[in-house]
């Protein structure tokens, strides 16, 4: 019928009859069977009819395959298969699709509410949408998916509204996470996979995005409460959910940052309050600022663990911590800058008999934490100076727990902040090692000389000037026994190092001296100055203040401190007339024969002078030099530079060490102008020119 030439070519009629046949069948059989059915029955019937239709069309198309091959392709008509489907579509599907969609959505909502539905049925119906669209998803998306997504949005909007009021924040999040999981499974069971992203997005939008504020700030259970209570699981869930929505993490990080800020501020406040109420004794105030340091470290650890364990180690949260701690760590507490407090803290850890007794591993960990806190402090040079001074004392009085730990801290500082800060201190440690080695040689030397051997155990530590802090020492008159020791070492040293000059710092020495009291002899551990003073009493039982000062050649402020430590403090080695707690130039001192203690060996401490002011002065002086050097360096390379730019670069170059005050930089620029290193540029306003 089809291969003959026209007018005997019946292809067209055949094509049309084919369509008619199908149409007829549909009209007469399929449509009536679907009429009057509702809900699931309708769906089932439809699925059945569609299956039949597909079979029919397939077979029919095979019969008339010849049409497909020639007529259809020549006339650019729909292939028979698709023609068949389009019949079904036009006559059946088009009419029913709204009802179908609604029914499907009802079923899905029912499942959401927990009812069991016929998943296979739903899948079959949805497959129709896909198949009838000839493989493209146009129908699926247009007729089903859009409505489905809208209804999903409605559904979750209602649910969210209810839940957010009734449930606590963690409960809400739990429910939200479950819903999302179920929706994902739903896609697997009967929806087209392409729907997944859109479905989850829309659900998240309703559940999380739109309610983000309420979730985070829920009273009694919101984000802040969870942070305070340490609810890591809930926080992790929160982070997981919020990370899936736009700006979610940012909002979460804002709340986190507020939290850290507030915690920090309350720490500061309680420390300051405590300091103000107890502003008398220095020891208590000292303990307060140490307490503060410990609490800051604790707070930091806690917040860090949140970020690592709950907040996916995300940089936004690390940044929040950094910004909050930079504020907390740069405020003064109990009259001490954080730099000083931190240095005292290190001293306590690293010193023998310090207030913190830690095992090796714990010590290393703590040192690591100290360095982390230091990254938030802007006055690092101040910390280093305090640390250097305290290190000096530890080394010279043999108070350091362990050389290894000292070096470890220095290498950590070097790693983070560069070698400039640590080179002097490394030199100090080097000096100590060398001194120990030297001592062995010196002992051998001493054993060989017989006449001038003072027969006193004696050791000397040689320090390289410039690496150590400057120590005050005066030319006190040492007792003859000590003079012999000094002479012996001088001879030894001069013979070994011809070109080096020694200056003696007696004020930094210490001495073990046995005092024969009535009851029993006791070994006293004292400073060299104290020992020299006590040895005066070998020659006289009674000495007046002025006699002591003259015989020792002591400056007055030293004399006051020394005599106080020996006669008015815990151990009264000397008796004083008159019997009171202050030293006056008219006092008389006597050796206290009756002194005794249950120990055989006691340390008579000499309280140190307050060096805080000097440290701050020294640091300020160094800063002026550093700023000058930075300005000259920058101007030398740039020749001409605008004021603001110069300031910005200067601050940057110095930022590792400290944060320079902008006014100070201006002052140094003016100073350099008057010293003719720079001049104001005449051509460009607000600029400077380097003067070679």
């Amino acid at each position: 019928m089809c291969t003959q030439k026209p007018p005997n070519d019946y292809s067209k009629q055949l094509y049309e009859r084919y369509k008619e046949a199908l149409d007829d069948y549909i009209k007469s059989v399929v449509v009536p069977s679907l009429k009057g059915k509702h809900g699931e029955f309708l769906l089932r019937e439809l699925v059945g009819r569609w299956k039949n239709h597909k079979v029919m069309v397939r077979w029919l198309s095979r019969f008339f395959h010849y049409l497909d091959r020639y007529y259809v392709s020549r006339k650019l008509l729909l292939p028979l298969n698709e023609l068949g489907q389009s019949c079904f579509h036009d006559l059946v599907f088009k009419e029913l699709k709204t009802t179908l969609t609604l029914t499907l959505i009802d079923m899905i909502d029912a499942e959401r509410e927990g009812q069991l539905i016929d998943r296979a049925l739903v899948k079959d119906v949805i497959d129709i949408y896909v198949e009838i669209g000839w493989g493209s998803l146009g129908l699926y998306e247009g007729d089903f998916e859009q409505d489905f997504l809208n209804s999903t949005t409605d559904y979750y909007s209602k649910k969210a509204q209810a839940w957010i009021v009734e449930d606590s924040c963690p409960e809400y999040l739990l429910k939200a996470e479950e819903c999302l999981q179920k929706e994902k499974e739903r896609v697997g069971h009967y929806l087209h996979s392409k729907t997944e992203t859109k479905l989850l997005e829309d659900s998240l939008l309703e559940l999380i995005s739109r309610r983000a504020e309420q979730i985070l700030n829920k009273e009694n259970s919101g984000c802040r409460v969870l942070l305070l209570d340490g609810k890591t699981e809930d926080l992790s869930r929160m982070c997981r959910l919020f990370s899936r929505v736009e700006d979610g993490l940012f909002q979460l990080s804002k709340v986190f940052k507020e939290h850290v800020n507030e915690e920090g501020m309350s720490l500061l406040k309680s420390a300051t309050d405590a300091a103000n109420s107890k502003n008398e004794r220095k020891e208590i105030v000292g303990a307060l600022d140490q307490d503060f340091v410990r609490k800051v470290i604790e707070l930091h650890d806690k917040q860090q663990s949140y970020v690592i364990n709950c907040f996916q180690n995300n940089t936004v949260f690390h940044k929040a911590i950094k910004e909050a701690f930079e504020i907390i760590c740069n405020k003064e507490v109990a009259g001490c800058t954080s730099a000083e407090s931190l240095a005292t803290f290190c001293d306590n850890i690293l010193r023998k008999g310090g207030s913190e007794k830690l095992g090796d591993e714990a010590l290393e960990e703590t040192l690591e934490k100290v360095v982390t806190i230091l990254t938030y402090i802007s006055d690092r040079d101040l910390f280093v100076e305090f640390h250097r001074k305290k290190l000096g004392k530890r080394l010279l009085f043999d108070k350091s727990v362990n050389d290894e730990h000292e070096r470890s801290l220095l290498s950590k500082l070097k790693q983070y902040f560069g070698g400039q800060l640590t080179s002097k201190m490394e030199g100090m440690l080097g000096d100590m090692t060398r001194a120990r080695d030297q001592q062995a040689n010196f002992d051998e030397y001493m054993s060989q000389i017989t006449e001038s051997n003072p027969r006193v155990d004696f050791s000397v530590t040689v320090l390289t000037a410039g690496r150590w802090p400057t120590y005050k020492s005066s030319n006190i008159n040492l007792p003859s026994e000590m003079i012999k020791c000094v002479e012996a070492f001088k001879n030894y040293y001069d013979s070994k190092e011809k070109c080096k000059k020694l200056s003696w710092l007696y004020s930094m020495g210490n001495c073990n001296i046995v005092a024969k009291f009535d009851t029993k002899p006791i070994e006293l551990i004292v400073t060299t100055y104290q020992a020299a003073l006590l040895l005066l009493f070998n020659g006289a039982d009674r000495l007046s203040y002025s006699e002591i000062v003259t015989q020792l050649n002591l400056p007055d402020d030293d004399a006051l401190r020394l005599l106080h430590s020996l006669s008015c403090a815990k151990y009264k080695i000397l008796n004083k007339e008159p019997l009171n707690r202050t030293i006056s130039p008219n006092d008389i001192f006597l050796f206290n024969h009756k002194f005794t203690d249950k120990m055989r060996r006691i340390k008579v401490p000499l309280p140190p002078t307050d060096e805080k002011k000097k440290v701050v002065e020294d640091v300020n002086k160094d800063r002026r030099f550093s700023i000058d050097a930075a300005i000259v360096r920058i101007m030398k390379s740039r020749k001409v530079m605008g004021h603001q730019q110069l300031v910005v670069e200067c601050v940057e170059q110095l930022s590792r060490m400290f944060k320079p005050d902008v006014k100070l930089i201006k002052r140094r620029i003016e100073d350099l102008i008057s010293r003719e290193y720079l001049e104001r540029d005449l051509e460009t306003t607000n600029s400077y020119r380097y003067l070679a």
Partner: protein
Amino acid sequence: MRRSSKKSSSSAPAGQTKAVSKEVERIDQLFYTYADSSSGMVDPEGIETLCSHLEVPHTDVRILMLAWKMGCEKQGYITLDEWRSGLKTLRADSISKLKKAFPEMVQEVTRPSNFQDFYPFAFRYCLTEDKKKCIEIPVACELLNLVLSLQFRPQVDKLMDYLKYQNDYKVINMDQWMGFLRFCNEIIFPSLDNYDPDQAWPLILDNFVEWLRANKN
């Protein structure tokens, strides 16, 4: 940069008219009436006499302007060369002519291009010893008053108050001195709206503006 107004003394070139050489003679003669015979210069006493003849107080700004016109290097002293060049430019060879020349001289100095040169001259003129680069605060205040108050009375008043009040600086250097002029010329007063401390103003002016703003009430 100094405006060089010194001309080396030279004898009148041949062909110079008689009138001119007469003028030079009169100028020189006038010089010698005030000059100290041993030093060959007009000294502070001589200047005072000159001022009384001119009927101008010797602390008047016009004397300072005259010194600028003459290119005087040392405060309180006038050399023959300086005298000659000054009076020649002013076309004065007698006291009365000199006096008459004053109003025009004031106008000339106040012209911005000349004032830019006169102003630092005033500072340098007040430097007393060699190598000294600063003047004390009280002297600076007086000088400000003398030199700027005609044009910038309100600024000068406030500035003088501040300089006496503050104690960050005990002396003023040339850079700060020039800054004062720039401030008066560029900054709207008394609102100070266009003053930006982040620019390269000398720190003393930053502090001055801060003080002004704090004491507005």
